[in-house]
């Protein structure tokens, strides 16, 4: 009952664009039932490395490239999920790396690899085909060398050399009980391939993948294959069996795929979904006291503190042990099982201001050129990615130089710029109002204001009641 989707890694809400217009993807196929069927179509095709699945129209588009191919770019998408073949996107090897299709092209000794299609400086017997994957000068293992992928080198003195790509078995570890593990190991210790979490077959289960997984901050870890036999080393090793020491740093980290504490701890506010919140708020936003995590009354639950050693399920504090939208808790009210603790404020996620301005900053002439989120500003003279409405010609007094933050429209919230992020036309800058500059108060006696247009509604009570049925 293996699903063809098992060979793919998914990036939800993502499209893979090819930046060369001369190279087009295949046309959309709108007659598929689901992503599994797309995977079944793409899987056997040697020139299909990925596919888009449109969740709205149930269409799929097969792609001959991945995010690691040249001239490609990942973009957020409202309706597309991107599925890429694991062999092409993992950065470690399984078994001896025969299936490795990554893009490492340098040997363990630092020598650039020779192209497989070249016969100089090293002549050899291999002819690149789609099946053997001898592409460009990427490290490959066409002869099942126990040392893993290798290549002929461009140094005439060294005919070939191993590329030293790490085994996935050496490249992953977990903290605590592994509840924060976000790697891509997909085999059990005994060698069975895992069922995808986003499938309900062959086993139905309640663990739906998080609806809001932020693919833009999640790292992609290696994928492991089965160990060689019973009693082999667990695929994901623990750094500490003792939860009391589970917060200690790993003694050593082999490879680049170790799982660090990915979210910094906060006490008075929460960042992102608040998985790192360790403060002492213990009521819901509605003021209902939280149930203790180590209690099973009034609500029974699976979040026993000892099972989630990394989650700090102390007392009855609001926490987010399951990737929900915000810190939450079971409530002490029998009729209300869980509730969010939205009264905890979100932490400001702005970068540190680099300079200050007076007034609304219309006379700011400094050289800060990035937004409060750290995104570089677009040059005022550039037309891409955003066509500016203010230019040095249209606003000569605003000193719209280079990509420096300015305020050509006297925006009351300070200097701003067009951003280099195609999804954010403009944003305010990494600037603050100068300490000695007091903004004028708006709390003066109000002037007579005439509203030109406004909200109108039907107010007859009987109509309201009929709508309520």
């Amino acid at each position: 009952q293996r699903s063809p989707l098992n060979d793919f890694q998914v990036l939800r809400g993502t499209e893979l664009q090819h930046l060369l217009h001369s190279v087009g993807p295949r046309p959309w196929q709108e007659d598929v039932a689901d992503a599994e069927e797309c995977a079944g179509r793409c899987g056997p095709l040697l020139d299909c490395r990925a596919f888009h699945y449109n969740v709205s129209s149930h269409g799929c588009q097969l792609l001959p490239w991945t995010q690691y191919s040249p001239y490609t770019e990942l973009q957020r998408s409202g309706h597309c999920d991107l599925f890429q073949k694991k062999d092409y996107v993992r950065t470690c090897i399984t078994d001896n790396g025969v299936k490795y299709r990554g893009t490492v092209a340098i040997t363990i000794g630092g020598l650039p690899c020779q192209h497989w299609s070249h016969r100089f400086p090293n002549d050899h017997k291999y002819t690149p085909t789609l099946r053997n994957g001898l592409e460009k000068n990427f490290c490959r293992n066409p002869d099942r060398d126990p040392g893993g992928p290798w290549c002929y080198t461009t140094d005439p003195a060294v005919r070939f050399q191993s590329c030293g790509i790490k085994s996935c078995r050496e490249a992953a570890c977990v903290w605590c009980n592994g509840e924060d593990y976000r790697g891509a190991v997909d085999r059990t210790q005994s060698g069975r391939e895992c069922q995808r979490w986003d499938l309900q077959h062959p086993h139905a289960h309640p663990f739906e993948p998080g609806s809001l997984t932020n693919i833009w901050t999640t790292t992609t870890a290696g994928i492991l294959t089965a160990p060689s036999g019973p009693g082999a080393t667990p695929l994901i090793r623990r750094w500490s069996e003792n939860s009391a020491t589970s917060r200690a740093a790993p003694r050593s980290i082999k490879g680049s795929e170790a799982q660090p504490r990915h979210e910094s701890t906060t006490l008075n506010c929460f960042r992102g979904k608040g998985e790192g919140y360790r403060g002492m708020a213990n009521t819901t936003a509605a003021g209902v006291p939280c149930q203790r995590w180590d209690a099973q009354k009034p609500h029974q639950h699976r979040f026993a503190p000892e099972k989630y050693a990394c989650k700090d399920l102390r007392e009855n504090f609001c926490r987010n042990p399951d990737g929900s939208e915000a810190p939450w808790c079971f409530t002490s009210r029998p009729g209300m099982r869980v509730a969010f603790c939205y009264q905890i404020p979100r932490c400001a996620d702005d970068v540190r201001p680099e300079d200050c301005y007076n007034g609304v900053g219309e006379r700011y002439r400094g050289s800060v050129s990035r937004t409060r989120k750290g995104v570089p500003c677009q040059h005022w003279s550039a037309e891409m990615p955003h066509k500016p409405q203010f230019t040095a010609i249209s606003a000569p007094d605003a000193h719209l130089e280079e990509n420096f933050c300015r305020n050509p429209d006297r925006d009351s919230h300070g200097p701003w710029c067009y951003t280099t992020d195609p999804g954010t036309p403009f944003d305010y800058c990494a600037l603050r109002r100068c300490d000695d500059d007091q903004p004028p108060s708006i709390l003066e006696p109000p002037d007579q204001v005439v509203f030109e247009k406004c909200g109108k509604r039907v107010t007859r009570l009987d109509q309201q009641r009929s709508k309520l049925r």
Partner: protein
Amino acid sequence: VVGGQPGNSPWTVSLRNRQGQHFCGGSLVKEQWVLTARQCFSSCHVPLMGYEVWLGTLFQNPQPGEPGLQQIPVAKMVCGPSGSQLVLLKLERPVTLNQRVALICLPPERYVVPPGTKCEIAGWGETKGTGNNKVLNVASLNVISNQECNIKHRGRIRENEMCTEGLLAPVGACEGDYGGPLACFTHDCWVLEGIIIPNRVCARPRWPAIFMRVSVFTDWIHKVMQL
């Protein structure tokens, strides 16, 4: 809404997650734009696939085929200026305005609502047992000055916030109402003067409620919609 009554607020929208569950309120300020609270979203760059705005219904869980229900996907999110706690959502397509769905107008820049002005909050959030959780509830509140509000809140109220009077019986916004409107009746017009933001507890008796003052950000709202 605690202490409210079932009512009509055609500019109040319901934000729905991928499972179709209501999680926050919002206000329709333009056919394709909804103003809501930053607290409702985990990040300014969260993928919005599957998120929708529901309008034209009074029910928290309308039946399929409910007449007048409009379900529009959210296409884009723009976070407000620092300290604003506001977010503008761009919808995938414009809503259809009718008797059940209407725009609320924005206040003039830096307009300060006079104390005593009659306002309303609306939402599908928690009622704490004071009403029907399954329908849109509306409650009336009167604006007080920041000066008066600061007496109780010990000077913590900023100019970009505004307050309504704390009543003896608890009346106010609660969990699930965040992001929704404080609409005030001024000069024969309903105007979006405040946005419901999370507070420490909901509807505390005798404590003034705090809202984001929209007029401080009117220029930003227009600029985002224009650019």
